[in-house]
């Protein structure tokens, strides 16, 4: 469904941000992209909805070349929740903020109403529906950004640093939301530095460094490799570090770890 064929990308200032990326992401999977700042993670995902076009190679989304599609058309299928909510919110009320995308995509009034109610309810924003988005707290703004994108039900959801500014409870809610989306058959891609958040989700993990994918596979497998950890300057999740130290099978959560240690 998403395919990168030998994709390279050079910024206007001459910096090579992606080098020879070959990648396939299939339907209804969870993929995490990790790596240092400036490794090319955000540049890579911006190619999926056409915000960036490859300098070399091609990106196919549902078999269609992104170079031949408008961002608006691709965005109907690929929703990106950006890192900074302050770069997205502008409407006078939370309700209008959510409706913005639905109107842009020409979604019918009845469906607009249903999707709006679902999004307000799912993200616990109903009581703020007539409040200005500017008056929400950081965590609430982030939730509103999720609601704005999920409201039009894209097939692919890309989350750029979804846990920034979220407390533990909210992070768990995001995990639940991701599980829910996967159950609905969606494809989810997460760009994150929060390895502890990713670990229980057990995603396919791509590690990026200097514009290249240096490792691709199951999170436990990828993060067990010392050279990958060193090259991408990553820190292992605590449960994996413990399992490696005790030479155990990596546990997915604390319960599994307790069972293995008992």
């Amino acid at each position, binding site marked *: 469904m998403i395919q990168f064929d030998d994709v390279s990308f050079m910024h206007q200032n001459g910096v090579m941000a992606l080098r020879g990326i070959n990648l396939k992401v299939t339907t209804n999977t969870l993929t995490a992209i990790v790596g240092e700042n400036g490794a090319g993670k955000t540049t890579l995902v911006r190619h999926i909805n056409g*915000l960036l076009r490859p300098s070399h190679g091609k990106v196919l989304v549902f078999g269609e070349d992104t170079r031949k599609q*408008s961002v608006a058309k691709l965005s109907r299928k690929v929703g990106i929740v950006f890192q900074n909510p302050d770069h997205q919110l502008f409407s006078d009320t939370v309700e209008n903020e959510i409706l913005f995308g639905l109107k842009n995509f020409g979604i019918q009034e009845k469906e607009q109403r249903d999707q709006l109610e679902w999004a307000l309810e799912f993200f616990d924003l109903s009581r703020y529906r007539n409040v200005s988005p*500017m008056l929400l707290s950081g965590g609430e703004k982030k939730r509103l950004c999720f609601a704005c994108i999920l409201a039009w039900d894209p097939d692919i959801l890309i989350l750029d640093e979804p846990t920034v500014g979220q407390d533990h409870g909210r992070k768990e809610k995001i995990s639940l939301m991701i599980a829910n989306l996967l159950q609905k058959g969606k494809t989810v891609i997460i760009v994150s530095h929060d390895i502890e958040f990713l670990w229980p989700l057990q995603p396919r993990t791509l590690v990026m460094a200097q514009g290249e994918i240096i490792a691709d596979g199951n999170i436990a497998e990828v993060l067990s490799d010392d050279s990958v950890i060193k090259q991408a300057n990553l820190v292992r999740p605590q449960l994996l570090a413990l399992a490696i130290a005790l030479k155990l099978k990596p546990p997915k959560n604390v319960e599994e770890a307790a069972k293995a240690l008992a």
Partner: protein
Amino acid sequence: MYWVAGGFIYRRIDSVVHRLDARVKLLLTSELVVLSLLSFTVAELAIALGSTLAIAASARILKRMGRTLLFSAGFSATIFIIDILVGYTIIEATVYSMRFIAIVGSTSIFFLTTSPDELEQVMRWFRLPRDLIFAYVTAVRFVPVLMLDALQIMDAQKSRGLEIEKGNILKRIKNFSPVLIPLVVNAVVRSGELAEAMEVRAYGAVKKPTMLYDFVMKNSDKIAAILSVVLMIPTLYYFLFLV
């Protein structure tokens, strides 16, 4: 948009003009502006514009100045049309629109080759109020930051189905509101945060703060200043007494 903005942003380059003392650069720019204002024929303005472009070439900013001039060409064309409509001749309208381009070019020499730090030093040298200097220099420093913000906001809104370039001119202006509102709100929030950050770092605690660096004019700066004044004297004589 970023392409146009690049024509207004200072970049560190090692060139003869960049190395000059900021006061000398200001003197050169002022002389070029005076030259443009005193020129009343196409030929005279061509010489003023040519001198500006020659200095820009030696500063290796010709390409970026080209963007500024291209951006100003729209305003220049408006001046030309208005002049024709109010009854000026084609030659007069050409002179006025060319003069605008020449003034924009000469002032951009100063801004494209002078860092915000040097700008601050020049303003201090003129003994302008400290708060005014700080506000102005901060605004200049934040231009690239705001540009980057604008690009990120545009990307975010395009990803929500906004098609900025679609529709007639009125629709396009309206399309910009989802970009402008977060941009302005961010700028206001950032300015509040900056004010607090400055206060906690004792901004305004003493009336006359001490400075680490001071202006020292090198011999090359003095030579450049004297040379420009020497060239300017006969030019002024020509415009004031011979034309």
